[in-house]
């Protein structure tokens, strides 16, 4: 056993981690690092607005734009919603927005946005010919209690 460990010590961790990733996929501490493994021909950005339609910075709600994008994908996958290329119907967007704001709300119970209206919106970027177009859609609004 000692001989095996000593002989393989130069690569054993790399090999074990590689096998772990093959078996467990995306489960911390294993990761496929699949971000940017493809360049999609569309992209989504999510943002918050208040009752006057002014943007609320993500940092004010303890989150980030990247976090919201990941949250969107996670919710779609957990609910088996088909997503991407702007294919989501208004009702699906409404449901996803509701779940996203619920997640944001539970980690913001003590923040200043209590009792304030918060709306989540989506920007959908896509190509029309050679031009990049942007479609803005409201998803869901709620009052943080």
């Amino acid at each position: 056993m000692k001989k095996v460990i000593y002989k393989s010590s130069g690569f054993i961790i790399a090999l074990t981690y590689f096998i772990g990733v093959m078996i467990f996929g995306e489960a911390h501490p294993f990761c496929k690092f699949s971000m940017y493994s493809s360049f999609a021909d569309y992209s989504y950005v999510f943002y918050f607005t208040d009752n006057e339609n002014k943007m609320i910075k993500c940092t004010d709600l303890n989150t980030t734009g990247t976090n919201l994008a990941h949250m969107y994908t996670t919710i779609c996958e957990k609910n088996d919603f088909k997503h991407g290329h702007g294919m989501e119907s208004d009702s699906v967007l409404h449901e996803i927005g509701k779940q996203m704001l619920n997640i944001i709300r539970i980690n913001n119970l003590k923040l200043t946005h209590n009792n304030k209206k918060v709306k989540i919106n989506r920007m959908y970027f896509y190509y029309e010919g050679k031009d990049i177009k942007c479609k803005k859609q409201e998803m869901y609004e709620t009052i943080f209690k």
Partner: protein
Amino acid sequence: MNSFLKNNSYSKLEWTLMKSSFSLIWLLSFLLIISRYNYAPTPESIFKLLPGGFYLCFNAKIFLLITNLLLIYFYIIEKHIWWSLMGLSLISLFAFSLEDSNSDFNRNTMITGVFFAQFIAYSIKKKYIDFDVDKYRIQFSVQLISISYTISAIAKLNTSGLKWITDGLLMPLQIMKTNYFGFVNDGNLEHITNANHIINLVDKYSLGVMFVLAFTLIIELFAVISIINKKYAFVYGLLLVFMHIGFYLVLDVAIAGTYIPMLIFMINPVFIFWIILKALKNYLITALGSNGKANTF
């Protein structure tokens, strides 16, 4: 500088500086997570194993913080290190799983992975007393970091194949997205100005973009050769730094959980800084000494 690379072993100072920098990054990440998250609304990793809901109360956070600080202290002063590393690995696993369970995927796998890798090195040392733990506690960390980059390249080839390089021409949409992420975070319009500027450059130099992407893919794919020895790790670390700078400039993306452990264990910038300071000090002493002699004459 050259001798530090020629020698395939690591000094106590190198290890201490690595540990200290790494502990600082870990502590900051930990504080950020426990200040942000109380629940695990979209369970991932170990949180998938927990039945029912999860709530991290204030007292539990304080307990975790004190335990973490104690473990970091023992880790740095190299006391009860086996226990410290086991504790740090588990707390790191818990904290980053909590982060993932809030759909906040910051790819901090390397931090937990490095703690586990070092824990394994000390576990082997515990069983076999002549095991070269001074070398392998760092080399194991380098193994974990370098294989992660290779896995990332394999994911690209698996998903897109070599088309990943030509698909890069769709990058403007990603540039738009990542820069808008910056804008929605802090409301700074400069992110959007930056996006338009970079998109114009990408459109203008599309061949150059494909070349850079091919270079990125090759660097990532062969990152695992960093495990050969310390010199390979250092040189490869520099290549990876260039890659990360490119990613940051073009996509406005800096994945701290990836590039910081790489910097610490493959390049060890604090140690390099210390070598430079030492060389500068020696140079000044020599220069002032010879000046002194000249004055005497």
